């Protein structure tokens, strides 16, 4: 229980800090509010970037950008993976064969290259990024859910319930959801973290929404700044988005792992 609460509490703290940065912090995350490359001060907590835009404000808005992309991708993956997994595991036969093929297809494609290709060609809106990430996240979920459903299908109470003519939705709601929901939730939570990483990777390559102050984009801008190596600007320009990214991904991961232990009682 404590292992569950600590990462959750820390993540909440992080979210609160960034919520302050987004809502109450006086500097704007899109517009210059100071000189270029100012060192951290009381006015600019983490200094400014080359355009004079406040870094703390950018990192804060980046947090919610990343998190919302992660959550949105996770929700889509959750629904897609859950529905296809249950349907395949329960129905068997041709449905199962098709879904299994799809799962294997998506598992075998090298993800980053195809994301680059699709991202480059479908344009750089956040919505596209969410869809692309979700499209490559549902397969592992579906695989697990399918296996679990298959084993559940053979249990006596389900066979009995089915013989009374229960529909799939009814059966899922009353008999299977208790087993499958935790599995689904945990895998989706893991998707959130991965999606944040993938979005920032794409942003680093310049393939994410250019208007959003995404962390990957900030990192790319900073590393692309000429002469960054022999100045000290990188300390307040590069490290904040990097640390924010690592920290939030880590906390999410720790949380989902603790949840896994807690719910599924796995070692």
């Amino acid at each position, binding site marked *: 229980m404590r292992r569950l609460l600590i990462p959750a509490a820390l993540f909440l703290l992080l979210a609160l800090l960034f919520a302050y940065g987004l809502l109450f912090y006086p500097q704007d995350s*899109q*517009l*210059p509010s100071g000189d*270029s*490359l100012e060192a951290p001060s009381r006015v600019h907590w983490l200094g400014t970037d*080359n*355009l*004079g835009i406040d870094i703390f404000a950018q990192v804060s808005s980046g947090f919610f950008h990343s998190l919302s992309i992660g959550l949105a991708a996770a929700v889509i993956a959750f629904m897609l993976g859950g529905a296809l997994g249950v349907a395949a595991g329960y129905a068997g036969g041709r449905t199962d064969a098709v879904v299994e093929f799809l799962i294997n297809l998506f598992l075998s494609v090298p993800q980053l290259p195809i994301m680059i290709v699709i991202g*480059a060609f479908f*344009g*750089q809106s956040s919505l596209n990024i969410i869809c692309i990430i979700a499209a490559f996240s549902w397969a592992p979920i579906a695989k697990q859910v399918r296996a679990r459903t298959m084993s559940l299908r053979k249990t006596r109470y389900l066979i009995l319930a089915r013989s009374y003519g229960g529909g799939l939705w009814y059966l899922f709601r009353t008999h299977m959801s208790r087993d499958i929901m935790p599995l689904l939730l945990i895998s989706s939570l893991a998707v959130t973290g991965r999606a944040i990483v993938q979005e920032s990777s794409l942003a680093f390559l*310049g393939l994410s*929404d*250019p*208007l959003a102050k995404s962390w990957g984009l900030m990192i790319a*801008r900073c590393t692309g*700044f*000429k*002469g*960054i*190596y*022999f100045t000290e600007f990188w300390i307040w320009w590069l490290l904040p988005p990097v640390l924010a990214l690592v920290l939030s991904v880590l906390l999410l991961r720790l949380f989902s792992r603790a949840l896994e232990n807690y719910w599924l009682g796995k070692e």
Partner: protein
Amino acid sequence: MKKSKFISLFLIICVAISLFGGCQSHVNAPAGDAGGEHGVAESSYLVETLKLAGGTDWGVPSPYLNVSRGPGQAKMRLVFASLLEKDETGDVPWLAESWSFEGNEYTFTLFEGQSFHDGEPLTTEDVAFTIDYFREYPPVTNSLGVGDGFIIENYRIVDEYTITITVKEANADTLSNLGSFVILPKHIWEKVADPYTYNVPDCLVGSGAYMCTGYEGATGSYEFTAYAGWVNGQQAAERILFVPVSDELLAFENGEIDIASMPADLADKYMDDPAIGFVEKADDMGYKMLINFERLPEFLDLPLRQGIYAALDRQSIVDNVFRGMGSVGSAGYVPVSSLFYNENVIKYEYDPDAAKELLGEKGFEISLLTDDSADGISIAEIVKINLEAVGMKVTVEAVDSASRDDRINKGDYDFAIVGNGGWGNNPPGYMRTLFSDKSKYLSTSPASMGPRGYSNEEMTELAEAQLKETDFEKRKEMFKELEYMVSEEIPLFVLGNQSSYSMYRIDYYDGWMKTYAYQQAEQNRLSYMAR
């Protein structure tokens, strides 16, 4: 089974690793120079090497293979010579020692004794062959036109060194166009049926002052060596190297390269240093805003456009985005620092109250298209805030530049921001493709595309007429008149011009120059000649 698996795994890896190690020898130290000081031979060149930042693959420096952007073109033009070159003030001899023209006939006389890099003499036969060959297979950079637009009617070889070229219709740009196509060696290309894929070493046998002696695409490194058979003057360096660098500035500081661009934010550090020289590219990069009048015909009403200008705080673009290096653009389009600038053009001051009055209570809702570069987005954000302050509603749309160009070409935008280089070029030939109704759809690049849904007969006439005018002063006056008309009519909005600097160490090599027509020191051939 395990053992064999393991062995095969190892074999695979060994093969993969030896793939690039085993094929060729990498030992390249000059004989007799076994690790000691690099002996500097007496050289007739000003400097032994000039090193520039490389790292990007600009393609094979050959007329059909180079990448079409500036740096690719410039490398090709080191290796391949054209008839004429430009210096600070005008046209100068390059392969042609002298030239003359009358009506549609242009006569060029080549230097005697010039040869291609394989030693074969360069004669008017080659010039004539190149014209025919380019007519059939347009090269990457093509000043002669394509198909029906091919500007040359015919040619007449007078003798081995003299050729007369007849054009279909002479205009102010004809000499420049005829002077700038590069000459191919006939004895090599006459056998080539598909020049677009011809990339055996032969394709680098050029006619220029430098030979391409090393090219590696993956790392973006190039080596050019002075060609001893070049007759028109002396090269400045024995070798020119384009070296991949991790950070241009760091490499310049460490002496790994001899010229670098200076970031605006570090200007203070270098400007005061007497050991460092600069070549300024004044106002060369420019940003404009286009209105799609087909979609927003309301804006054909002039006061609305004046209102937009008054709403824009263009000084803040210069201050915040260009970090002070640049100027608030001239409403007449041609930048302030140009020879052709008209100081009498109308100047629009930032005046939000006046803007509100002019724009009225219409409450326009528009989208503003820009590319996804950092500068493009920052400018769009500033424009958005300015316009919203006077009661418009603006959504910024940022897409990658290819998509942006495509949408502008198709007319799929309300307002759009376009940034491009070359505003400092002389003469400002872009004025024609921007403002003449006859020419504005000829080009498909948004950089020089005129405003959609706007037409102006008087402007068109002037923009076309300047091309026909061969007298320099008269042409300049026509441009100035055109600028004034543009500033008055506002077919588009000039947001700002950005200047940039190349810096170099004066004591090492001081020959970097810009031509009257083109400001890129690194891309001008005369920068590499002893003058």
